């Protein structure tokens, strides 16, 4: 295809020769990023992290280096090669890269590191294992709690459901918060809304076994719909696309809760389906961390996204504003305030330990 385009365009004028070595980027700051085996087009944290990095790099007028991993033995080599390339800040994505990140950080104290969705605490002593790693983590449970409360408030059938991609803490934290939020709604309103797909006490539930849209995800969504659920929360990147398919083919009036970004905005074709979304500010936080480091203000204190600092949250109801109980928004505001001031505690086994 490119060949054709090139042929068509090959008659264009040559640009004037300029000695384009002025390196507009005044600084020699070089931000870099390593993906995990999902790659940068995973429609999930790799992609959001990449977008955050690109945004910051554009703002700083620098050209970042980004490398993709294809398997878990690649991580160390990729990080090592970025060090060799002279990166000043290396952002790694996901718990899978924790070991490689810590090892490289200890060996290269002059390079700064940041890791998304992990606390870089391999020995479980509650502290980051190297002084030059900044963990970027999110306390997603409270946001999911609010979404669960909202779902329970909206549900007409009295059944809501969730399922995940794989049983990772970064996935189940959503499910914990969501289920707890439904329980809290029942407690407050004396209702009996059922939450399917995840059992907080035993930490067991439904998973598709991977982070790809497909029949497994479709079957999970279909199963929940067959049990009369009218709100679905699929947690795990693109698996929500199959849930949408299941909803459309069921012909029922079923709403979805999105994760990570406000899917009402990012998936405009299906926007009518989204009750709300649980927001996780990966893009903005990565952008902040990179910008900070670019302006020579890197510090290794973990960044923990909370309701308080708007690192996590829930999106507005958009088109559902008229369909939810009129008091729901106020109740959610009160819950948010309660969580922030500590009068309501939302905890998940997967919550960040800081």
């Amino acid at each position, binding site marked *: 295809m490119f060949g054709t385009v090139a042929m068509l*365009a090959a008659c264009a004028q040559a640009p004037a020769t300029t000695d384009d070595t002025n390196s507009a980027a005044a600084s020699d700051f070089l931000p870099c990023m390593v993906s995990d085996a999902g790659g940068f087009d995973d429609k999930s944290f790799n992609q959001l992290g990449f977008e955050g990095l690109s945004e910051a790099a554009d703002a700083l007028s620098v050209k970042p280096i980004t490398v993709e991993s294809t398997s*878990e033995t690649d991580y160390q080599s990729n990080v090592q090669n970025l060090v060799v390339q002279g990166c000043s800040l290396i952002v790694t994505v996901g718990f*899978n890269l924790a070991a490689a990140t810590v090892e490289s950080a200890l060996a290269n104290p002059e390079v700064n590191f940041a890791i998304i969705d992990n606390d870089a605490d*391999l020995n479980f002593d509650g502290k980051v294992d190297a002084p030059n790693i900044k963990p970027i983590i999110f306390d997603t449970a409270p946001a999911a709690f609010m979404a669960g409360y909202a779902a329970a408030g909206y549900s007409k059938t009295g059944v809501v459901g969730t399922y995940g991609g794989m049983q*990772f803490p970064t996935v189940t934290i959503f499910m914990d918060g969501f289920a707890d939020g439904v329980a809290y709604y029942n407690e407050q309103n004396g209702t009996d809304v059922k939450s399917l797909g995840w059992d907080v006490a035993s930490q067991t539930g439904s998973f598709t076994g991977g982070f790809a849209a497909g029949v497994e995800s479709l079957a999970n969504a279909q199963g929940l719909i067959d049990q009369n659920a009218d709100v679905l929360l699929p947690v795990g990147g693109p698996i929500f696309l199959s849930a949408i398919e299941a909803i459309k083919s069921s012909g029922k009036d079923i709403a979805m809760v999105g994760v990570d970004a406000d899917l009402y905005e990012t998936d405009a074709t299906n926007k009518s389906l989204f009750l709300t979304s649980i927001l996780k500010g990966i893009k903005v936080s990565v952008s902040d961390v990179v910008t900070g480091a670019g302006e020579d203000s890197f510090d290794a204190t973990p960044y923990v996204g909370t309701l308080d600092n708007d690192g996590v949250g829930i999106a507005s109801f958009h088109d559902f504003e008229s369909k939810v109980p009129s008091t729901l928004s106020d109740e959610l505001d009160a819950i948010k305030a309660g969580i922030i001031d500590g009068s309501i505690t939302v905890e998940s086994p997967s919550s960040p330990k800081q």
Partner: protein
Amino acid sequence: MSDKTNTPPVGPASKDGSERWNQTLRDITGGSAMISILAVFVALVVGAILIAFTNEGVQETAGYFFSRPTDLLQAVWDAVAGAYSALFQGAIYNFRADNFLTAIRPLTETLTFATPLIAAGLGVGLAFRVGMFNIGGRGQMLIAAGAAGWVAFAVELPAGIHLIVAILAGLLGGAIWGGIVGLLKARTGAHEVIVTIMLNFVALYLIQFLLRTPGALQAPGSNNPKTPAMLPTAVFPDLFGPRYNLHAGFLTVIAATIFVWWLLDRSNLGFQFRAVGQNPNAARVAGINVKNVYMYAMAISGALVGLAGVNQVLGTLTSGFSSGIDAGIGFDAITVALLGRSRPWGIFAAGILFGAFKAGGFAMQAAEGVPIDIVVVVQALIVLFIAAPPLVRAMFHLPTPGTTRKPRIHSVKVRTSNEVVAK
């Protein structure tokens, strides 16, 4: 052929089908070293074209090709030369390093990545020589990694002994996972391709389950599906100190190569292996127990592939592993075995070449922004060219082996007759 269809099946499903299958394997493994070398060369050339096409600078300059063609040529040259020199510097010797010890580091990286590829390649190659296609490398590696890993982090033993026990546990795991295939083939005639593929899934989900189960493979105190770090007593020592990743696992692979060479070329078991691989009917008539050969061969093949899994967890990635630890090596091993024409030292060389691609690929991506997929494409092209020897022969006008006297029409003739007579 005559009336031989009355012979009961020896193990392979139908004589006609398995014969053709065997013939294909023989054609591929019997190619000359020259074909392998030319296949690599052609693949690199095609890779260069792909690098040029995907390069931004090339795309830009192609836009005004007719007004200043030299720009395009320059851009193509820059892209290709840059990528391949990054590949070289990432895989063999880094000219830009300050001193020799740093400069030679890429070579040790290459050998580190080659280690599991050679081990698994030997396993797959051995199966080829017995006329079997072992596509179950992934499963065998995972089971071996699970077994070796568990011994390495959960059992406490004195240094040295611990390492040996962990290695043996891994080899045994791989041997069992491969041996199951041989057993099913020998006893029920199940085709090893299907069984190995299915066992890959069984192993994957079994390991994933164990990784999620506290007390099994999951690291205590963690929720992630990942094992704890291996105990230092069970880890392969570094060969050249902590500066380099190259570990003693490479020595086990050299030993494995020598073992496979001895087995195939010098032992009577290997003689029987090769006899069955070349002509199972004649082997059976000669009193060789073909069923046992299938079982032994698959068990040894599985153990060799298992050695790759052992090297992954005790050498390359000692900080704990998850279900992706096989890193696709089980499949890359097929390529390595084909490129090495299933000869032990050929596989050794092919494994090092692929290790170099792997190590150099990181540098190519980091330094030149060449997508890592290009390396995968080049590897795939190598397989393509090796699997189609006539294509490479045609490209370089090489003679077809064995046809100096008998032109091709003869073989066509014989095959047709088989079909007709042995209805």
